[in-house]
């Protein structure tokens, strides 16, 4: 079986009025079904840019990206984005309406079925209590969980998450991470997850792609990440290894 998402030799550039910035250069990787694929790298190495390109918001100036064998040319509901920003929920819709919105807009389900499914996913992220509230009355963590429920309710081919927990406090972040893993155990969805926290990458992912900065290039890929565990210290060891790898250049450069 071929990979769900196949990215080969992708170079992404931003054209501003005065310069052309190369964000990533000749990046290749592939994501299989039910992977928890993590993009890890220092700030500015082009993680968000890569994710936006997979989302269809940017066209690569070199290379190809395919999902299910089809080339990615524009945004589509087969790839649901979950952003870091808290303002990704539509403020004029309640939690329930927000989760139903993409289901209705893409005509995936009729109104009745959409509501049933939306309620089921809201329950999964334990937000049934606020199902009729407007987003501005929710805490940051709750908003992110609604966004996750909204993305998952679409049951897309792949979920694209750009540092969804980065703006949360440490405690809420832990809860959200555990909840995401719990959800994955239930439905085994495919997710591509961007983070700059090594610990979060190890906790969430089963595969980690390490990127080097300016321009972003693939430095290494870590596989079988789910074999390490926090109890016997293997997770801590991996964290140290990845840390040394990522900061090797900066250490020698100075």
């Amino acid at each position: 079986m071929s990979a769900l998402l196949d990215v080969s030799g992708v170079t992404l550039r931003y054209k501003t009025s005065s310069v052309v910035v190369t964000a990533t250069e000749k990046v290749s990787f592939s994501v299989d079904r039910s992977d928890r694929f993590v993009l890890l790298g220092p700030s500015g190495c082009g993680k968000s840019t890569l994710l936006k390109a997979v989302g269809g918001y940017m066209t690569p100036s070199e290379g190809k990206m395919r999902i299910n064998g089809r080339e990615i040319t524009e945004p589509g509901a087969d790839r649901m984005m979950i952003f870091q920003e808290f303002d990704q929920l539509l403020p004029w819709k309640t939690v329930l309406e927000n989760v139903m919105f993409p289901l209705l807009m893409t005509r995936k389900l009729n109104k009745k079925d959409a509501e049933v499914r939306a309620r089921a996913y809201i329950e999964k992220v334990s937000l049934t209590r606020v199902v009729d509230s407007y987003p501005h009355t929710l805490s940051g963590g709750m908003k992110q969980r609604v966004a996750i429920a909204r993305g998952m309710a679409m049951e897309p081919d792949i979920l694209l998450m750009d540092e969804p927990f980065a703006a949360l406090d440490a405690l809420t972040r832990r809860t959200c991470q555990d909840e995401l893993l719990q959800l994955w155990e239930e439905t085994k969805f495919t997710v591509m997850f961007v983070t700059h926290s090594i610990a979060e990458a190890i906790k969430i992912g089963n595969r980690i792609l390490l990127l080097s900065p300016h321009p972003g290039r693939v430095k290494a890929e870590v596989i079988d990440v789910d074999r390490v565990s926090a109890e016997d210290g293997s997770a801590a060891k991996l964290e140290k290894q990845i840390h040394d790898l990522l900061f090797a250049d900066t250490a020698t450069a100075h």
Partner: protein
Amino acid sequence: MGEARILMRSDAVAGAVDPSEVERKLGVVELLWNDGFVRKAAIIVFLAAVWEIYGTLLDNSLLFPTFHDTVITMFDKVRDGTIPLRAWASLKVLFMGYSAGIVLAALFTVLAISTRIGTDFLETMTAMFNPLPAIALLPLALIWFGLGNGSLVFVLIHSVLWPVALNTHSGFKSVSNTLRMVGRNYGLRGLPYVARILIPAAFGSILTGLKIGWAFAWRTLIAAELVFGVSSGQGGLGWFIFENRNLLDIPAVFAGLLTVIVIGLIVENLIFRTIERNTVQKWGLQT
């Protein structure tokens, strides 16, 4: 050797807290005073009292009739049907101009967000015409459309179109990039994208534009009617004011002015406030 200890406190589990301590009901006076409408009504009552006192002291109903004279005249004119008829005539024209202006503004802004030349067009046009008082176009309108509703509607469109288009466009431009990306993620584009994402997201600015447009239109209309006003035998409120001034029926002039103010207040405080409460305030886009 230091070692931290955890002391359990039972405050949080003490159970049945008196609910009145968490949530206290406000008294009647406090409740009323918290209602902006009540506070504004109190101000209006105060102003009416000042008016009455000044009118009585002056004692010259040709210059400045008292409040109660004005109100009595107003009631008479309402009862015999003059004021409702005149107000209706004005509102009918206003409604035509207002809705035509909004339709045009919608067209212009949709054009402006879909093409770059459309943006330039809208920005140039609003920069040119927004500062131009609508009433200044009236002489020209009279030549083009003659004495009648056509001229009125023309100046009304001018007074509504630019503020509404300007506010809507700047509202669209300030919709956050995240929301735009969310909308496109669901495959929305073209008009559905405008209707489902941009308009609700920019609703605060759009409403501001509609309010400004309404205020401009109402003023412009009354002023324009003062200049000519009779069309097909049925003048509006502005004409009513002008007519009664010529008859030296000053209380009626005041009654006409008061009607203009009252209609303005009703639209502003009832219609727009209600829309605001049920949209931007409910969504937390405005406090």
